[in-house]
């Protein structure tokens, strides 16, 4: 498809474990166009995280291919950012330093990185946490900082794996009130795995996973 940010073509992933072989993703095909807002729904263990990791290039499919036609060779962190299901702030770095990291990986200067990271935290209402260490944050705070870290480089595609899993309903919605306009402004696309129906409702498209099978409507 023309202009697609991401295309997955008959992608499967099998985990070979001592007891049994787990087919976490079976023959999934999909495309993500620019500015898409996709919710990835499905019960626990259905393969959402595995699929997102394949789509983000963090893991290699057992068969099939994932391509990012619009990005060229430069995928992460410039064009694609990932928000993880677990706590993934680097423990030795403060909140601000964690958020600066993707910019520094792209070679941004010290002051530039600092300024943009501050702005990102400000925008998501996390400014007060700037100097805290990850171990000093609540689970929900850490997840929001991780989201800020994904957004700071203003990538064109964000893959988020239950980014608000540890937030209550209300806070999660409030957080998305801050996040979504920013994504929209930038024209970025987002694929967001979630159990939260209301969060899912805020997306324009809903994909579902069941036993490793991806169902893309339409």
């Amino acid at each position, binding site marked *: 498809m023309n202009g697609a940010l991401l295309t997955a073509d008959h992608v499967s992933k099998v985990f070979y474990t001592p007891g049994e072989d787990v087919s976490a993703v079976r023959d999934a095909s999909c495309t993500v166009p620019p500015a898409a807002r996709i919710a990835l729904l499905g019960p626990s263990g259905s393969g959402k*995280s595995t699929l997102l*990791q394949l789509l983000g290039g*963090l*893991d290699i499919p057992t068969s099939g291919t994932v391509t990012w036609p619009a990005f060229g060779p430069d*995928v*992460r*962190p*410039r064009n*694609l*950012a*990932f928000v*993880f299901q*677990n*706590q*993934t*702030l*680097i*423990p*030795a*770095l*403060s909140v601000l*330093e964690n958020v*600066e*990291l*993707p910019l*520094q*990986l*792209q*070679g*941004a*200067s*010290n002051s530039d*990185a600092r300024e943009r990271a501050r702005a990102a935290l400000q925008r998501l209402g996390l400014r007060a946490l700037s100097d805290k*260490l990850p*171990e000093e944050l609540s689970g929900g705070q850490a997840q929001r900082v991780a989201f800020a*870290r*994904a957004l700071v480089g203003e990538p064109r595609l964000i893959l988020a794996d239950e980014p608000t899993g540890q937030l209550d309903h209300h806070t999660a919605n409030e957080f998305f009130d801050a996040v979504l306009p920013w994504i929209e402004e930038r024209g970025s696309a987002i694929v967001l795995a979630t159990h939260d129906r209301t969060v899912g409702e805020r997306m324009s498209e809903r994909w579902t996973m069941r036993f490793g099978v991806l169902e893309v409507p339409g």
Partner: protein
Amino acid sequence: MIAFVWLRGILSSLSGRLLGAIAGVALTIALLAALGAFTASSAASMTKQAIANVSVDWQLLVNHGADIAAVKKAVATATPFTAMQQVEYASVPGFELQSRGTTQTTGAGKVVGVGASYQYDYPREFRALVGKPAGVLLAQQTAANLHARVGDRVTIKRDALPPVQARIDGIVDFPDADAFFQAVGLPPGSAPQAPPDNILILPETLWHQFFDAQTAVRPDSMRTQLHIRISHDLPGDPLAAYKVVDGRAKNVEARIAGSGIIGDDLAAKLLGTQADALYARVLFLFLGVPGIVLAILLTIGVTTSGRTRRDREQALLRIRGASSSTLLALSSIEALVVAIGGSVFGAAAFLFLHPHPVRGDLQWLFAAIVAGVFLALGAVLVPALMQMRSRTVRTSRNAIGRATAPLWERLYPDVLLLGIAALTYWLTAASGYQVVLAPEGVPQSAVHYQAFLGPVLFWLGAALLSMRVYRLLLVHGRPVVVAASKPLAGALAPALASALSRQWSLMTRALVLVLLAFSFGTATAVFNATYNAQALVDAQLTNGADVTISAQGSASPMQVLRRLRAIPGVLAAEPLIHRFAYVGNDLQDLYAINPPTIWNATPMSDAFFGNADAKGSLAALAAHLDGVLVSEETVTNYQLQQGDRLQLRLQVLPSHRYVAIPFTFIGISREFPTAPHDSFLITNASYVARMTQNPGAEYVLINVAPGNIERVATEARKFVANLPGAHVTTILEAQLAIGSTMTSIDLRGLTALELTFAVIFIAAATGLMFALGLAERRRAFAILTAIGAKPSQLGAFLWTEALAIAVPGAVLGIALGIGIAQMLVRVLTGVFDPPPEHLVYPWNYLALLIVAAIVATAVAVAAARTMVLASVTTELRRL
């Protein structure tokens, strides 16, 4: 084995830790056993050598009127023995010889009577120079005084009796005259008696014929001794051997109650050796113990690595229902595996080093294994127990976090230790003390153990101070860290600096191990190199050159000089004239050289000369044909001024008379190759040869290309075979035979061992500790990769972190090592003779240490990179 450990460490942090601990315990066991065995065997070989060097074990002085047969019987019952010779001594007023129209007389002397088999039992007591080694033998010095030759009839003056005459059968040399003529029974500490100037040896029967009558009139001038060699089946430890020998001597004295007294040379020699053995122990402590400490620290470093991660794992196990006792049982199994594995590998390594262990070796191995098992239990179980307690009370301190200064820093132990170190060092080094005290007549030498305090406290204090400074740098010196890591880490430098500052506790721990490993390797290597250089100087001084040819009398090795020079491998061969000269009434050794060429044959150290300038002194000698360099003592005795004229009396060839020859005093000599340590003279060869009308040189000094000494010596022996009395000696023999305390200890085994271990320690400290420390931060690197770090950026991050430990560790460690080597040389200065002028740096070995560190770091970084890249998703799935 280390490589194997790494390989496994890459695969899994847990089993890497286990194998690392096994390797640490194995290293500790192997090092401890090897060092112990070294000390024991060096003591045994010193004892053996000492016993072999004593020619007469016991000289039993039999009192006048005692029943000699009864005394002999008492000895035989008290000790097994292999030789017992009766020796008679008579003091005489002098000797006289009339020959070739002149009459020569001497002062007082001694006439000795020995049995025909004496030479057989004690072949080294006197050595035939001219004529037969049996019959009537005249000592060389006496022969020179009397101008005597074989066949001449010498007149022996007797006390209160008419003189008698004997025909000379041979002229002999008395290498061990001091002992042979010692005054048995003098209280310890009294001044040693000089051997008599004039000596004549007679066969037993002839002696009795001449002197039995003198016994009647002047019994005080007569002595009877028994020269006894006891059985040498003695313990290997010198002190134990001393106790056996001394016990037997006391037993004999008790049995013969008042009939005689024993001069126990063997026991005295063993006592001296005990001091040497203590030096070996001192070296063991100085050089070995830090290595063992390091091995233990490395083991603990391994077992306590990855602690935060294991906290989490234990917490998970608890959640799944594991009880404290289950966890303890798991840890106990781990400790057991480490103990058994460490013992097996440690024993294997030791047996590899000692393929044919003797009983003492195995005893040490056993002791080392016991220590290793304790180390294994301690290093594995103690952290596990602490972990459990801290889990239950929730006080576990994170390895990564905000910078709060550790408690010890606020107590300033580093400053305290350095202060005490400086004080003790100053007290010991300034007071010119001896590390090993061997007081005269006291049966036990003592090691001045306080002397260790300086270097040891310095080592600890400097290590702690380095930790403090390093932590301060990481935590407060951010701009420095950023600037230093910029070349490698680029834009990531600020993030890296922050990360390093928050994991200072991991970093300082790793740093101190690298630093200690480097300081250990450097101190050992520098000390060893300095020591070897000094031993070489010592050997060179004793032997004169790589190969030395000496001859006496008319046979001068000059005759074969040209042929010697033609031997392949000979770089230079220089004659050295050695005569005796009277300075006033004082007979001194005189060495005559050709100043410009002597350098080619043997090194001329600045320390040889009073003005500490070898070049200048030799140039001055070359400029003054009649110049002479004399000892400091002579300068003070004779109130000499530069340029003073001196009359020295030398023997002139045709007449053999001592004739006064004028010399000019131009400087002071302190040491010279082949020269004794006391007074001697150095002059120009051409002048002495001309003035004495004797161009013969008594020595030829040969400088040999490395590795050719044995071969050149063999060739040279062929050439001088028909020069009477000629000897070829090599520096290698001198090195073995040198009796001076320190240099007699063969350090090679010890240092080869330690230098090997030092390389392993450094590889382990830099590589293994980094790889294991990574367990704490693997997740951080996985995250870094997941958010988009390229493999090259990850590599830069890892390299910077590894170098942030390795570079300061190596630099500080090498500096500390040099400091410690300096202290060691200083502290042991009393045992070097002469003391070294400066430290010798074994650059190749130091380079090897650095290469080992670089290779280990590179392997560890590569392994870490591969491991992180391969496990990003698994790592992120972990909670």
